[in-house]
């Protein structure tokens, strides 16, 4: 196991496309393997963090259940882009507390700080 830092970028809203779920499955697999991983929610991906989904009405499993598993898998950092949140007029109180809000400047730093980007 080497020490490369992996940045996993989630830009997909949940339910409408299975890629949102599959990106989190990748994060959990990386965590389970002890990889150094940071998760960044960007653009439409921020909807994954907005609470009060009722996906059972459309026959889906709740995305939030997967999110809540993240700390159990030793994911180092879970971040969300403030600009993406603001553009969609989402209040920070509506977001899952699992993610830390970061500004655009910090987003750039995060990309620069990581060795590999897995983009979803």
């Amino acid at each position: 196991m080497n020490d490369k830092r992996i940045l996993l970028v989630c830009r997909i809203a949940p339910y409408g496309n299975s890629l949102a779920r599959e990106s989190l499955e990748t994060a959990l697999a990386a965590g389970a393997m002890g990889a150094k991983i940071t998760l960044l929610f960007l653009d439409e991906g921020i909807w994954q963090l907005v609470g009060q989904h009722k996906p059972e009405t459309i026959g889906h499993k709740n995305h939030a259940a997967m999110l809540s598993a993240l700390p159990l898998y030793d994911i180092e950092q879970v971040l969300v882009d403030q600009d993406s949140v603001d553009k969609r007029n989402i209040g920070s109180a509506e977001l899952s507390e699992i993610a830390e809000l970061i500004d655009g400047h910090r987003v750039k730093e995060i990309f620069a700080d990581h060795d590999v980007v897995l983009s979803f």
Partner: protein
Amino acid sequence: MGHQLICDLRLLTSMKFTIVILGAPYTDEAAESAFRFTQAALEKNHQIYRLFFYHDGVHNASSLITLPQDEIQPAQRWANLIAQYDLEAIVCIASSLRRGLLNETEAKRFSKPASNLTPGFKLAGLGDLVDAAQQSDRLITFGPTS
């Protein structure tokens, strides 16, 4: 900055790539671009550490895709490249089962009437994607959204 540039140029002489394919063939351009990038990298003597087919990208490995003869046969074209350069081509097993892409073992296990994984591709887990991210100089994702 200058030092960084020199390091990057050295790496450019031969780099170890992993290619992640998220798009199905035919529907959009992602898989086509992934194929062309892979082929170009190999022709320039770069190394492909692994091809990883994930999400709708698993359809690239289907032997049942049937197109008119004058069109590109996606699975066969990948299989030819895989054989020519002895590449490792991993198809995510979880994504595959959900989309009806099975090898003989999985078809038997789930009592399905057929298998359709093209020879040359291998079903395996997400661990191989994480490993590839750690072992490669560059990981490039080709998806309908990227």
